[in-house]
């Protein structure tokens, strides 16, 4: 089997969930599969998308939704994209400012009550308009009866600027990936009112994304890449010791560039909400789960499209099933999983119950997208 391209340039953003891509390179899982990963630290998701499209990057850690946004031409021209695998589940969070907490907003219902009683413009930040954090934030606010687009102002802020802007009072809360939620708690700036796994236990998060053209021209390279990252995810999830070692490495300047202490507790499932509550989380960020976390379920991809429709990012229903099947490279994933000795689920859809009690199983996306009482009409 000829590897079409041995050296692959992989983009990542400095967030905890870049771990499996980084460790695939650091631990040499890439060489085991006949490729060499060259990591490229990026500064924005828009930059990642553009570099995937122009070929400057071969593949990248990408926001699940962004891949579909690009496929469907939201904010850019349509470009055929590919999801090679899911990189991780869980581990994002919604943070409110300490000020808001002191005014009584300690969870969803009390935030909704505060926003009803003390009327002003409330500002919440996410990291990218079609990204996962925007979708978790909007879903969570709507589940509390707050219309995220009309009852509040939603803005995009780069993750590294979240804590600063929260401290300065420029915004009331944000949804971002770790380590930023825990950082806000550590610095005494904000409190964690919801984890993303509370919104959707075992939700999909970052994917290994690429342009369809790259995947079509380099199937063997992509298969090797998936296998290498699968092995890295399996290694990370294998023990707390491995997770500690991973935190040590990705905290380094070349990667997340932060204190190890900002990363470590939450990847071990140890949460502190900044309001005196500590707990061992049953769904912390995970990178493998015996392959369940990595399988790119068609229903996961479809969910993001239903939310784009819900919030008016899509003006009409897309062909949900065709789009999900075109983007998700299930066959390639299966072959790579076999190489890496990773189990593949029998079904390409799964059923989940989200925070508002609604069940999403991939069936009838058109109805699901328009069934929410709070949506853009």
């Amino acid at each position, binding site marked *: 089997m000829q590897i079409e391209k041995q050296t692959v340039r992989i983009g990542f953003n400095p967030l905890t969930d870049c771990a499996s891509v980084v460790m695939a390179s650091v631990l040499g899982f890439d060489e085991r599969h006949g490729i060499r990963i060259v990591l490229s630290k990026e500064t924005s998701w*828009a930059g990642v998308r*553009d570099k995937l499209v122009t070929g400057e990057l071969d593949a990248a850690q990408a926001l699940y939704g962004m891949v579909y946004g690009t496929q469907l031409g*939201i904010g*850019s021209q349509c470009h055929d994209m590919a999801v090679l695998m899911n990189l991780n589940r869980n581990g994002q969070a919604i943070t409110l400012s300490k000020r808001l907490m002191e005014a009584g907003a300690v969870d969803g219902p009390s935030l909704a009550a505060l926003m009803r009683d003390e009327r002003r413009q409330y500002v919440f930040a996410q990291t*990218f308009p079609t990204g996962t954090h925007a979708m978790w934030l909007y879903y969570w606010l709507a589940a509390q009866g707050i219309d995220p687009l009309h009852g509040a102002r939603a803005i995009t802020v780069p993750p590294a600027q979240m804590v600063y802007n929260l401290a300065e009072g420029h915004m009331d809360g944000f949804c971002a990936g770790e380590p930023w939620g825990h950082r806000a708690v550590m610095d005494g700036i904000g409190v964690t009112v919801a984890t993303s796994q509370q919104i959707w236990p075992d939700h999909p998060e970052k994917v290994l994304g690429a342009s369809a053209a790259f995947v079509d021209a380099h199937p063997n390279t992509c298969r090797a890449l998936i296998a290498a990252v699968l092995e890295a995810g399996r290694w990370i999830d294998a023990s707390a010791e491995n997770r500690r070692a991973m935190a040590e490495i990705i905290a380094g300047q070349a990667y997340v560039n932060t204190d190890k202490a900002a990363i470590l507790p939450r990847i071990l499932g140890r949460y502190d909400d900044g309001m005196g509550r500590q707990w061992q989380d049953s769904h912390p960020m995970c990178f493998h789960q015996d392959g369940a976390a990595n399988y790119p379920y068609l229903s996961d991809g479809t969910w993001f499209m239903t939310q784009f429709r819900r919030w008016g990012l899509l003006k009409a229903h897309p062909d949900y099933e065709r789009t999900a099947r075109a983007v998700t490279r299930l066959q390639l994933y299966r072959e790579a999983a076999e190489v890496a000795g990773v189990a593949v689920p029998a079904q390409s859809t799964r059923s989940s119950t989200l925070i508002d009690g609604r069940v999403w199983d991939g069936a009838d996306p058109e109805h699901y997208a328009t069934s929410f009482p709070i949506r853009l009409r």
Partner: protein
Amino acid sequence: MSRNLRIVLVHPHHESDASQRACALHAGLLEAGYELVASLPADIHLPERIAQLQPDMIIVDAESDARDVLEHIVIATRDERRPIVMFTEDDKTSSMEAALEAGVSAYIVAGLKPERIKPVLNVALARFRKEEKLLLELADTKHKLAERKVVDRAKGLLMSRHGMTEEQAYQRLRTMAMNKKLKLADIAQRILDVEDLLG
């Protein structure tokens, strides 16, 4: 013709190479006679300022983290003004691609004709190239200066230790460098290292 385009430049809110490049770009556009309605820092107030200014074109460093903020503005205002990302334009001239490779990224109102965009990006490109050349030259000069210092210190050492004149010390260094097939500065550094080691 292109002169009355309303252009906003986004610059980083902290000192960096990118902020130097933004300054150079600013100067270049002004020299070429373009009206810059503002040069805005990439901070939390960016969306409001852009909403007030309603520019035809926003130019930003491709490696700026403000890219995602602009992305939000692009999507949020797509019904009224429909700005689009530069490289999604069908017109793919080599100069635009070169500008993009050089790190210029522009968000432009849809319907703005490519022939009006091109000259602006050409100016941007020329500025980036010039700036890049200057930075390279500066680095080169600094490097040469550092090398000269090392050679001078090694010469001084030879002069004081072995009672050589400056010319003799220099010739000795040159001979050693040639014999060992090393650069003058490298052999000088070795002499200084040995001196450090043996005190």
